[in-house]
């Protein structure tokens, strides 16, 4: 396979959109395959991969629909490539079944959702965080998901790399939740050099693995089975039915339970590696503004300007929204009197915040759900009201 491009030999500042930063981040992380379907406001991601992937011998596929795009990236992942797809809310809905399949067969893939206002066709060119619960619960059955939410173009780049790495490390589909503002925003960012980036590749069976002994869904200590590329001679079966360690369905309830538990625990035993956040909470802050994605830009702006007027407020920004940072939010709730949760929806993640806070702090939402960013003055007004 031809690979002529060495990734970013020197560090440089560029002005790019969040959507383009996803492309740059994915390429930096070793992604060689994209399949998807055009949709506003994510089409720039497809266009970027169409342009860049052939340069490194990678593959770009524009599929006949969103479902096929999701299917094709899972196929490419099983064939050994790091693969990614990108969409927006309506397309994300169509991808859900095969996203559940990826979870079941433990295929590392990244699904980017550049959120726009829904339901249905909604407002295609306006920002939203309305797919938070779709990411968590959009599929049939219980299952874990990892979802990251960048709040800037720089974070779109960094968290794409992180998303690819997490997917490879845990054999787990990862959702990257941008929104229209972050996807289309142009910001100055510094692209990393190749030696600055940590790249994680999936664990594969040893080269001398005996095909007769290979268990594609082996119960290992870390709960993450080594994954063979199709064509490597191990001839294994992959199915969306509950399967035992051999990969074959046996229809037994015990097998289903064992697998459900393993899929859950492989993430929950490693939450410290998965849950990413940033915060600036001072000892005497009485209010924390907890946010994610573009709403965090408003939150941090309101807190920083408020502090100039001596408001006792701090901010907490979630970069990982799923699995939810329960422990961290519980600690936060013990520390402050009030948690304000600004969201570009009618109040989705706030349910989790309330659950984790468990009455230790008052939890208040600020919501914008008709296509506009929340303005810093709106959060400022609430800060002044509660302080």
């Amino acid at each position: 396979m031809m690979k002529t491009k060495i990734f970013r030999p020197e560090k440089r500042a560029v002005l790019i959109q969040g959507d383009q930063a996803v492309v740059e981040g994915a390429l930096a992380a070793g992604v060689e395959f994209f399949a998807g379907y055009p949709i506003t406001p994510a089409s720039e991601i497809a266009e970027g991969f169409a342009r860049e992937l052939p340069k490194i011998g990678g593959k770009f596929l524009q599929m006949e629909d969103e479902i096929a795009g999701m299917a094709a990236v899972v196929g490419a992942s099983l064939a050994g490539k790091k693969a990614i797809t990108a969409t927006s809310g309506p397309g994300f809905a169509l991808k859900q079944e095969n996203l559940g399949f990826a979870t079941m067969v433990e295929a590392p893939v990244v699904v980017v959702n550049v959120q726009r206002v829904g339901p249905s066709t909604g407002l295609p060119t306006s920002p939203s965080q309305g797919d938070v619960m779709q990411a968590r619960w959009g599929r049939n059955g219980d299952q874990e998901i990892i979802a990251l939410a960048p709040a800037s173009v720089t974070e779109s780049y960094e968290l794409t790399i992180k998303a690819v790495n997490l997917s490879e490390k845990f054999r787990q589909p990862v959702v990257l939740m941008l929104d229209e503002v972050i996807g289309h925003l142009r910001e100055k960012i510094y692209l990393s050099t190749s030696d600055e980036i940590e790249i994680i590749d999936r664990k594969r069976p040893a080269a001398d693995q005996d095909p007769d002994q290979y268990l594609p869904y082996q119960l290992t200590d870390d709960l993450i089975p080594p994954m063979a590329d199709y064509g490597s001679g191990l001839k294994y079966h992959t199915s969306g039915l509950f399967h035992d360690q051999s990969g074959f369905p046996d229809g037994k309830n015990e097998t289903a339970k064992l697998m459900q538990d393993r899929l859950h625990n492989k993430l929950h035993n490693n939450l410290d590696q998965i849950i990413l956040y940033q915060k600036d909470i001072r000892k005497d802050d009485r209010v924390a503004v907890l946010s994610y994605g573009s709403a965090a830009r408003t939150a941090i702006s309101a807190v920083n300007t408020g502090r100039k007027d001596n408001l006792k407020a701090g901010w907490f920004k979630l970069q990982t929204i799923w699995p939810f940072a329960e422990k961290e939010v519980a600690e936060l709730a013990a520390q402050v009197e009030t948690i304000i949760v600004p969201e570009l929806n009618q109040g989705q993640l706030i349910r989790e915040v309330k659950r984790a806070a468990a009455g230790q702090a008052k939890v208040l939402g600020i919501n914008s759900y008709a296509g506009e960013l929340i303005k810093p003055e709106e959060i400022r007004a609430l800060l002044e009201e509660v302080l």
Partner: protein
Amino acid sequence: MDFEKYLRMDKLPHIWCPGCGHGTILNSFIRAFAESDFDQDKTVVISGIGCSGRATGYLNFDTLHTTHGRAIAFATGVKMANPELNVIVMTGDGDGSAIGGNHLIHAARRNIDLTVILFNNQIYGMTGGQFSPMTPTGDLASTAPYGNIDQNFNLAELVAGAGGTFIARGATFDPRQLKKLYLAALKHKGFSFVESLSQCPVSYGRQNKAGDAVEMLKKQEEDTINFKKWQQLSTEEKKLKYPLGILKELDNPESEYTVRYQKIIEQVNNEGAL
């Protein structure tokens, strides 16, 4: 010849009903594969949901049992990711022409090098006999208790019209022809499609009083005719018979999708990119 190495013997017996034609298709496929010079280790077989979907479990290759209707879309990803792999899709008439119909025509349009074997038993068997796009008009099904008013597809013409470069039709009453068709389809560089007429005495046959497997196979033979003979029939006579054999074959490996994409890669790297 050692056919057992292509089967996961420990997974047998299969779950298909007595009299089902799907085992005949699997048998013919294995014989065809054994005659081909393809590497078993470099072959991936992909299926969807339904009776046909279970075929992959019995085959000793890298096998992928996907979601309903999406086998061809998964296969497209596998083939593009690694064009050295020989990728085969096993699908059914419901899986491949109803819920997966869009993927079927678009894969044919791209002319990507997949071999699609469509098990056509004219019914949704696994779910208990609902009508599919291939259930003949007027027949009975659990969801057509007063007779099916839907028209059925001519799948071979559909896929040919979409741009598939190898189109064939075989039937389980003639496994030797099926084997020949599969072998030719495997060798073809481009999108190849073999509609494989199969019998379902349980979910289709009982509702339509079609008799047992033997009677259904006899009917299959009556309803079909060799493609060369079919071509000599009058327009009216043609409507009464399904032609069997290779119906379309365009040999142009350069038009295959992964080959064309590879040319893009070479072009970008030789000429410099955008």
